[in-house]
Structures are given as C-alpha cells and as structure tokens.
C-alpha cells in the first residue's frame, strides 16, 4: 500500500479517510448514534443530545475538516469552541435565556424553600470527594462534582476553566442525568421516605401574592449579595438575573422574548454541536470517562438524598410538617424534578397537590446551583495552591 501511495501520491489524499479509520472512530460513531437515538426516540434532552451526538460523529471522522486544528484551516467546531466555550461565552448566554424563562414568584412567596435547594447541592461535594478517591486530581474532581449542580451551563462553565479535556464527557453526563431525573429520583426518594411522609399535604398559609416591584428588584438584590460573597460567580448569576430582569421589567418584551426563544435556540444549537466536537475518540474512550458517567449518577443520588433528608430534619423541629419529597426538587433540573415529585405525591394520594411547592423549590435550585458553582469556582484555585 505504501509503495502504491509513493507511486501515486494523490491516492493518499483520496484514501486518507479509510487509511486513518480505526475501531475507536467506529465506537464513537456508535456513541454519537446512541445520543441521537435517545434524543430522537426517547425525547431525552433532545435540544442538546441530538447536536452533541452529531458533533461527536463529525469529530470522529479521520482527518475531519470540522475539527481541523491546522493554522489557518481551523474547523468550524474548533472556531466555535474558541469563540464560545474556551472563553465561557455560550454558558453565560444560555443563562440569560434561562433567566428570561424563570418566574421567581413561588420562591419569593416562600423564600425558606431555598434551604432545600442548598441541601440538594450536597451531591456536588460528596461526588468531588468520591472522584478524588478513584484517582482524579482535585481540580478535575471538583469539576466532576459540579455535575451534581444538575445544571448544564454551570457544568460547562466550571469544566471549561478547570477540566477542559473532560468538557465533553462532563457535559454529556450532566445532560444525560438531567433527562434521567424521572428514573433516578423516585426510587431514591422511596428508599428514604415512608408512605405516610410522602402523603403529607402542604398548605399555603401566610403566602402573600408577589408585587411586580418585588419581582423586579429581586434579581438585582440576588446579584449584589451573591457577587459580594463570590465575585467570580457574577458572570453566572449576573447573566441569569439579567435575563430575569428583562422579563420582569415589562418594558423590553422584545428582548425578553428574544432571550427566551431566538437566543436560547441559537446558543443551544451551537453549544451542543461544539461540545460534541470535543468528544474525540482519544479523549472519550478512556476509563476516566466511564468513571465520570458513574460519578454523575452518584451526584444526582446524593443531591436527592441531601434535599430529602434535610426536609425530614426540618420536620423534626417544625410544627408544620413538610412533605420531604419536595427537598429532592432542590436540584436544578427545572421543571422536570418539580413535576416528577408532584406526580409522586399524586400517586401516593390523588388529592395531594404539591406542584406549587415543588416548583418553588425547583426554581430555588436554579439559584442555589449557580451559587454553589460560584463558590466552587472561587475555592478551586484557592485550595489547589
């Protein structure tokens, strides 16, 4: 073959795809196809898993021009990576879109639900410890733990700073497990609660309606407090709250609608395919990635346990009982977690409607996950020294 190519140099150009093909590329096509299948057939986070799966296929064609790193001939996925992920722009833009979609009124009516959201971040730290025990460095372990924030943009943001080589698997794990919340959370909750606890009904005593002024001032207040505590989190929480103030101001409906629709769709599209472009065989087909996928599941389990046990702990002190299942909604997978818990309550007792409480905790999870991400961002460089 080499003699043939030597005699006819143009053959090398024609056959480079075949010559460069290895079993690893084929396995990665299968991984990409699996993600596309899960998105298309089972509706698992299709807006992200489908572009990620396709990006993975593009990145694993030998000598793919989509991921070329030759100076002056950079592939479009490399250009997108440098333009939006290496500099953390895409996650921030996604947060503007999420903020514009969020209604914080349930959280403002009952701010104490934020405590459940804080407790449900326990999985981040438990998983980070677990990751160091299986051999990951501290920076990588903390980035793996962030999967437990159940928040894709936060995971991408932290990974792009401290674990760039793990960005692909971390993002895939985060989005896969977010879509698997209806599978992961119910058995965990059933294991640590009794049937009578799951049947606890919750009222709305003392919950006043929220004024427009409060809704308008809330994002400014949160940004200032979070920003003072962890200035490094301002990009994340600031963009989330900027999106929200666009919505709550009521004077820039066109910008708010743009953030909720065009911006969300466009950035999701390029974010997904760009992450897929980082999933090259040499990076993805490693034992570490297998560990990351396992640790991602652990993170979601510990989040759920943390939230539910905290609610049970409060019940031992509080005269007004809380349905401990709503503690599990403190993860940021919004609104899926809230819906799953509300359905579980209805399954236990068809007259028990806790959807509003569950969604309130779930919205608080959005804020708490960003705060947790900000604290981790601030502490990694300090502790890594």
């Amino acid at each position: 073959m080499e003699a043939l190519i030597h005699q006819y140099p143009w053959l090398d150009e024609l056959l480079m795809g075949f010559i460069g093909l290895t079993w690893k590329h084929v396995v990665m096509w299968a991984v990409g196809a699996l993600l596309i299948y899960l998105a298309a057939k089972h509706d698992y986070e299709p807006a992200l898993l489908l572009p990620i799966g396709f990006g993975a296929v593009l990145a694993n064609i030998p000598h793919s021009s989509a991921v070329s790193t030759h100076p002056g001939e950079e592939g479009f996925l490399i250009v997108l990576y440098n333009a939006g992920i290496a500099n953390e722009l895409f996650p921030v833009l996604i947060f503007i879109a999420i903020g514009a979609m969020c209604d914080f009124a349930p959280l403002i009516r009952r701010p104490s639900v934020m405590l459940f959201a804080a407790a449900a971040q326990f999985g981040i730290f438990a998983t980070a410890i677990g990751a160091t025990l299986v051999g990951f460095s501290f920076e990588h372990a903390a980035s793996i733990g962030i999967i437990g924030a159940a928040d894709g943009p936060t995971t991408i943001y932290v990974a792009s700073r401290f674990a760039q080589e793990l960005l692909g698997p971390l993002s895939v794990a985060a989005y896969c497990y977010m879509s698997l919340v209806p599978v992961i959370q119910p058995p965990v909750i059933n294991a640590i609660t009794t049937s009578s606890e799951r049947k606890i009904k919750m009222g709305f005593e003392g919950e006043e309606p929220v004024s427009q002024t409060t809704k308008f001032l809330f994002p400014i207040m949160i940004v200032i407090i979070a920003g003072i505590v962890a200035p490094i989190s301002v990009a994340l929480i600031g963009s989330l709250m900027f999106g929200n103030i666009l919505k709550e101001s009521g004077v820039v409906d066109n910008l708010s609608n743009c953030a909720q629709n065009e911006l969300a769709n466009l950035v999701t599209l390029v974010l997904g395919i760009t992450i897929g472009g980082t999933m090259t065989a040499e990076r993805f087909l490693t034992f570490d990635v297998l560990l990351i996928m396992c640790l991602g599941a652990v993170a979601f389990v510990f989040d759920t346990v943390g939230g539910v046990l905290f609610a049970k702990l409060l019940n031992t002190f509080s005269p007004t009982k809380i349905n401990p299942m709503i503690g599990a909604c403190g993860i940021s997978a919004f609104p899926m977690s809230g819906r799953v818990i509300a359905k579980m309550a209805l399954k236990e007792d068809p007259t028990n409607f806790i959807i509003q409480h569950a969604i309130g905790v779930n919205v608080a999870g959005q804020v708490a996950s960003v705060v947790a991400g900000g604290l981790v961002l601030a502490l990694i460089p300090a502790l890594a020294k």
Partner: protein
Amino acid sequence: MESATSKAITLMIIALPTMFAVIGVFIGATKALHAAFPAPVENDDDEEYEDD
C-alpha cells in the same frame, strides 16, 4: 490522592456552610423585599359602593 481528597473535603467543609449562610441572607433579604413592596390589595368595587 490523599492531598486531593483532603482538598475536596476542605471544599465541602467551607462551601456547604458558606452556601447555607448565603442562602440565609437571600431568605432574609427576600422576606424584607416582599414585606417592603406588598402586592396591591384588589379593591372590591361593590363593597366600596355599599360603604359610600
């Protein structure tokens, strides 16, 4: 590895209580904000008419 684990444990020991403290401040500030700007009470026109 031990060093990485001890750093991860330190991360949890610092970050979890800090997060609860920050969330506590959020709760207090949100309650104060909610109390400072209550939603306007809806007027019942019929009742007002009767009072008049």
